[in-house]
């Protein structure tokens, strides 16, 4: 038997799955135009691939009505065309196609209000994790995976459970989720994602220098991160939101059957239907106090 821990790849070879927010409601009013953002992103992807020819980059677009893979450097090279510029050009065309298709689906759907909707980050994260599992299955010698979210639009509260499921699964597989916020609002979901999975969360001050932020912070592989002082996630909002009003609370009532959170005392759980008995809680004095 070979020694179990021998790796073909050195520890600085990475698989980076980039999740890109393509929400048209956000980009319509964004400080950084989408075309500029895309060129920052493509330079970043290009530099990742130039850092090591074993590096692997996948881009997943998160739209309002759909999610899709738009670029996979693994496929690009398999075809024999190793021209990076050409494959990336193809990626940006594919991205534009995706945005048009997504807009059509949004228009035909009719459930999206005019004010806009959140991007489907739960779907994009789920896809990214499935892809990473495939890389894990490919043998013991695989690049070190991580996820980078480029989010601009606000979180979708209705995705809470699905996003949290993705975060916990990423944590179990030891996949860090990095976040670079390209909008104006912090994301409580992705703050928690970075905190729980040990990734980096950052909201750049000056978006016109996005490439510099991406290259300086998010291009560093997991091994090198142990030697660097990257921005730390501070002040993570761990407060819960109640199921009844989606209000943020720091104290509340939790159903013992399903763990739903409520801000007020209820007689019956609206999630699982259990009826609560008020008496059963404490009979603290019934037990003899035997300490050893």
């Amino acid at each position: 038997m070979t020694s179990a821990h021998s790796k073909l790849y050195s520890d600085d070879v990475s698989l980076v799955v980039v999740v890109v927010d393509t929400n048209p409601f956000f980009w319509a009013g964004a400080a950084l135009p989408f075309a500029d953002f895309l060129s920052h992103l493509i330079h970043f992807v290009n530099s990742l691939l130039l850092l090591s020819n074993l590096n692997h980059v996948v881009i997943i677009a998160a739209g309002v009505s759909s999610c899709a893979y738009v670029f996979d450097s693994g496929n690009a090279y398999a075809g024999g065309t190793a021209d990076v510029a050409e494959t990336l050009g193809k990626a940006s065309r594919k991205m534009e196609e995706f945005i048009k298709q997504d807009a059509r689906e949004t228009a035909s759907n009719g459930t999206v209000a005019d004010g806009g909707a959140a991007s489907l980050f739960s779907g994009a994260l789920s896809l990214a994790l499935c892809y990473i599992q495939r890389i894990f299955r490919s043998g013991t010698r695989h690049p070190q995976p991580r996820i980078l979210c480029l989010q601009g639009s606000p979180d979708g509260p209705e995705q809470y459970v699905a996003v949290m499921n993705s975060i916990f699964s990423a944590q179990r597989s030891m996949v860090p989720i990095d976040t670079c916020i390209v909008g104006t609002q912090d994301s409580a979901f992705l703050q928690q994602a970075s905190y729980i999975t040990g990734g980096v969360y950052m909201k750049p001050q000056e978006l016109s220098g996005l490439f510099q932020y991406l290259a300086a912070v998010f291009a560093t592989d997991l091994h090198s991160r142990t030697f660097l002082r990257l921005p730390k996630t501070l002040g993570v909002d761990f407060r819960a939101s109640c199921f009844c009003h989606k209000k943020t609370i720091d104290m509340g009532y939790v159903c013992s059957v399903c763990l739903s959170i409520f801000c007020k005392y209820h007689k019956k759980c609206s999630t699982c239907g259990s009826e609560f008995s008020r008496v059963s809680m404490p009979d603290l004095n019934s037990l003899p106090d035997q300490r050893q």
Partner: protein
Amino acid sequence: MYGVGVGGGGGGFNAPSTASGRRKNQEDDDDDEEEETGDGRVLEAWERAYADDRSWEALQEDESGLLRPIDTKNLVHSQYRRRLLLRSAAAAARIQKGLIRYLYIVIDLSKAASEMDYRPSRMAVVAKCAEAFIREFFDQNPLSHVGLVTIKDGISHRLTEIGGSPESQINALMGKLECSGDSSLQNALELVNGYLNQIPSYGHKEVLFLYSALNTCDPGDIMETIEKCKKSKVRCSVIGLAAEIFICKHLCEETGGSYTVALDESHFKELLLEHAPPSPAIAEYAAANLIKMGFPQRGAEDLISICSCHKKIKSGAEGYICPRCKVNVCELPTECRTCGLTLVSSPHLARSYHHLFPVAPFDEVTFKLGQKGGQNCFGCQQSLINTGGQSNIHVCCPKCKHHFCFDCDIYIHESLHNCPGCESQRSSSR
């Protein structure tokens, strides 16, 4: 050969050592003395060759008695489908996630744990499975607590305080894997009973023994101790690694626990993981409740205070602050030492929400040309045509109609708990 000496009802406290010889590979190995020498023994030639690799277990007999390798991929997938169906049945029974269980895992590290009928040793198998168990336990019971106790040289010792953090428990266990001397059920019970008497009354008190030995060396009358456990409502369960022992069976019967004996490693793991969800008995017994809880935030970096749990000076960013009395605590979940409020973090509760909204089992389908989603797995983009030379069977989500490979199917239902197809759609997921 499996099952000799198991379930045979070895009467008396000291059952005869019938355990070795249970395995096929030990059939003609009569020399029990050699087997039982503890540390520093030299490996037998056959053990050396198979110490890491039990290649014979990957073989099965076909109809004509010829050996052929087990088709592991299909086997894994069918095992998983069985688990999935079991789980949806359990979900229907509405098991309480919010039961607050206080469980001590007692690991027998007497010299019997060094026996090598489990590979590489009973002790190593117990540690490996205990790690998996602790993770699963916290997944199933996010508000519960686990502590570890070991028995060595007839003395029981508390390895970790009862707490809610899986990592610290696992680290402590991995650092203490040595075995020697005899085992003592009574000493362990006395110790655990003492600790469990300090917990709040709404908690369910449980002990789970992972017992390698076939005897117990007790300082006094164990029947009195069992009576004591029964009185203080400590539910004791035992998983034996050797053969059935009367006193263990008696203990479990008296205290309402379950007693099982493992046949081999995978059986042991299965038996152990059955203890992760709360037993139906206590799940029914406990009435539904609304529990008042606090969701503390991390303190600010520049806030220096003394934590209530260790009485040490900490900066605010290292701990959490009780929302009711503003006292500093180090770890969640916990109970505020000052005001008694149960403190949890909201991600901690969210860890079990997937049980509320499970992903429906996928349907098996065969590949047809021109279907929605093309020829790749929607999740991982792997081609669905000709995977590993097998027939083109894969699965399809009944809701979003996207197609997935077997590997993604397992990953989605066992770990991710989201359907990537449904989550990538606005219409059906909202």
